[in-house]
């Protein structure tokens, strides 16, 4: 904010030259507007990272507590498609960065070309995601209780639960267990699983009446724990070999998958709208060395979107 005005590329705006018409009046000059916008977009990206953070935390917690679910279910994902999408996004980041450079060097045609490439890549990404999502709908590998595939990842048939409708709308099991089942006492956590759903306390579900004499009747003081009971019903084997049933609550993997890729996809879509707007403005010649802030900031946003995908891809698709 010295006495001399500067435009966005740092050149002096001397008397007789005018700065870009897009410099707003409350800023001293183009440089002031650009620096402010830069700080603003970085803050925005910071909050975007935090916006995604809870999903990453949920991923970490659930994978730590139930690795078998992730190991089993990730095989339903098509690594090839994921890899293509990764490449597409990296390419689009390149074109976005190049667009900034083109604007700085007043290469208007190159600028428009780069923006178009970025948009095409974004559409490509969304298209591939659509293909992936529809495959999941088709195979019933969806979130939560909607996870009901007929085939295991390697294609073998999965035995469906016998007459067990699984869980009702409230998440309570509707299975008609025999009256004398004492779920909480007898249904020990199945092998390989870590017992009750993940929580932050290391709770051992165990047999609460173990320290006392056996109850007089089969209905001891403990009632049925729905989830443990469902685990019993859903199949006692956490066996990822062919033909075996998926581990209980495998739907949780797809819950996390759809949340993360879905939220990411929403951000890609938002980026599409931004780049369409930029493309329109570029065709009108708004941008140049004196004013290229919007391209720079949008490209930064796009780099973050790309970066988030670069985390998602190995975490979801490349589980060892």
């Amino acid at each position: 904010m010295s006495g001399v005005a500067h435009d966005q590329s740092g050149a002096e705006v001397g008397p007789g030259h005018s700065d870009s018409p897009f410099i707003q009046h409350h800023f001293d000059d183009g440089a002031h507007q650009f620096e402010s916008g830069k700080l603003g977009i970085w803050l925005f990206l910071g909050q975007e990272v935090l916006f995604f953070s809870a999903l990453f935390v949920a991923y970490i917690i659930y994978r730590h507590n139930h690795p078998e679910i992730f190991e089993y279910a990730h095989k339903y994902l098509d690594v090839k498609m994921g890899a293509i999408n990764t490449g597409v996004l990296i390419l689009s980041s390149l074109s976005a960065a190049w667009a900034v450079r083109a604007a700085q060097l007043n290469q208007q045609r190159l600028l428009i070309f780069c923006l178009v490439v970025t948009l095409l890549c974004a559409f490509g990404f969304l298209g591939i995601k659509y293909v992936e999502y529809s495959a999941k709908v088709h195979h019933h590998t969806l979130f939560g209780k909607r996870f009901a595939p007929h085939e295991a990842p390697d294609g073998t048939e999965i035995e469906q639960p016998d007459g067990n409708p699984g869980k009702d709308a409230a998440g309570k099991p509707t299975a008609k267990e025999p009256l004398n089942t004492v779920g909480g006492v007898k249904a020990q956590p199945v092998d390989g699983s870590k017992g009750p759903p993940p929580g932050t306390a290391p709770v051992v579900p165990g047999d609460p009446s173990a320290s006392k004499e056996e109850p007089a009747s089969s209905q001891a003081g403990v009632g049925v724990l729905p989830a443990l009971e469902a685990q019993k019903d859903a199949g006692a084997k956490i066996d990822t070999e062919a033909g075996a049933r998926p581990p209980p609550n495998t739907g949780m993997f797809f819950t996390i998958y759809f949340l993360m890729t879905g939220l990411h996809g929403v951000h890609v879509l938002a980026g599409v709208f931004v780049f369409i707007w930029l493309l329109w403005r570029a065709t009108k010649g708004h941008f140049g060395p004196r004013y290229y802030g919007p391209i720079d900031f949008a490209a930064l946003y796009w780099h973050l979107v790309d970066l988030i995908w670069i985390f998602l891809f190995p975490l979801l698709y490349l589980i060892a």
Partner: protein
Amino acid sequence: MLQYLLTFVVLAQPAPAPAGADKPATEQAQPAGDKGKAETAGDKGKAETAGDKGKAETAGNPCDKNAPRPANKPKKTLPPVGARTDLGAGSYWMPPANSDLATHVDSLFIAILAISIFCFVGITIAVVYFAWKYRHRAGHKAQESSSHNDPLEITWTIIPSIICVIIFLVGWKGFVDLNTPPRHAYEITVVAEKWKWSYKYPNGWVDENLHVPVGEPVRLVMRSKDVLHSFWVPSFRVKQDVIPNRYTKIWFEAKTPGVYRQYCAEYCGDRHSFMKSLVVVHPPGGFKHYMEEAEQALLDMPPVELGEYLYAARGCNQCHSTDGTTKTGPSWKGIFGETHQTSAGSVQVDENYIRESILDPTAKVRAGFNPVMPTFKGQLKDEQIDGLITYIKCLK
């Protein structure tokens, strides 16, 4: 003797509920004066006629609680719970301290209170005094004073820090004690659901109040059937959230016999404030005796009494009345033998339908009601279901 049992049923109810829920119990609690003829509920015990529609009268009317009993098996009754002993006792700030943890908590509380009052009074005096002494008046000006003073600032940083560290350490120690039950603690299972507490004892007895022995550590293993609840006994200063699909634990050792209030301390919906029970601390020998009585009473009750007891103890009274009032669920009065429209067509209310409604309540939901009844599968023995069926049968 019948009154004792009936009184127990009355006192074992959850705290004051809107009119309707209490009716059956209060009706029965009228001092009959004539022992053995306590049928004040009106629609029970009519040995003749009406009664069971379509059922052949057998020699012993199942609805008559006073039917002659075998000579060698006198009726077992449970002692009444008695009034709360934690009212009016205790200090200005706290209910009576009835556990070692409670004493620790109170000491720390009073210490923090003393420090807080000291600080607050000091600051108030300073503020009021300065506001008066340095008030603006003609000719008064602000005097030169430094805008920082290292020794003062260091002092008023270090001293509060030290105090905070001490408070933290003492609080932590008490917390660890709260979470470390002794090995030999007596274990009781607690099930929380909207909106009642069930305490399940090792001998199979299910009570709606928590009975514990004095001077012995008791460990509660708790779970919820639906949403979050929290088990809290102010007199013991213990509290722990109760979570669905997970067990949480808490322990305490009661020091003094008596009857203490227990609350739900995590918001859980409409009747959250009514979800309370009593902790009955028995004097030495009393708890063992109570458990024996309970076990015996359970085995010994005639079905209709068993049904009536379960109606209150297992919380059916939260949603079903016995006097015709429609609540969340239909009233039981007079329904046996009736034909109802349900979500699965027309149905006659018979033993099978009642049993199914207890075990699989959403199978045939009566028209005009929502499918909100929880299942009791795995929680009621066959004899208990029989008792409920008989009780419903007998509600004219």
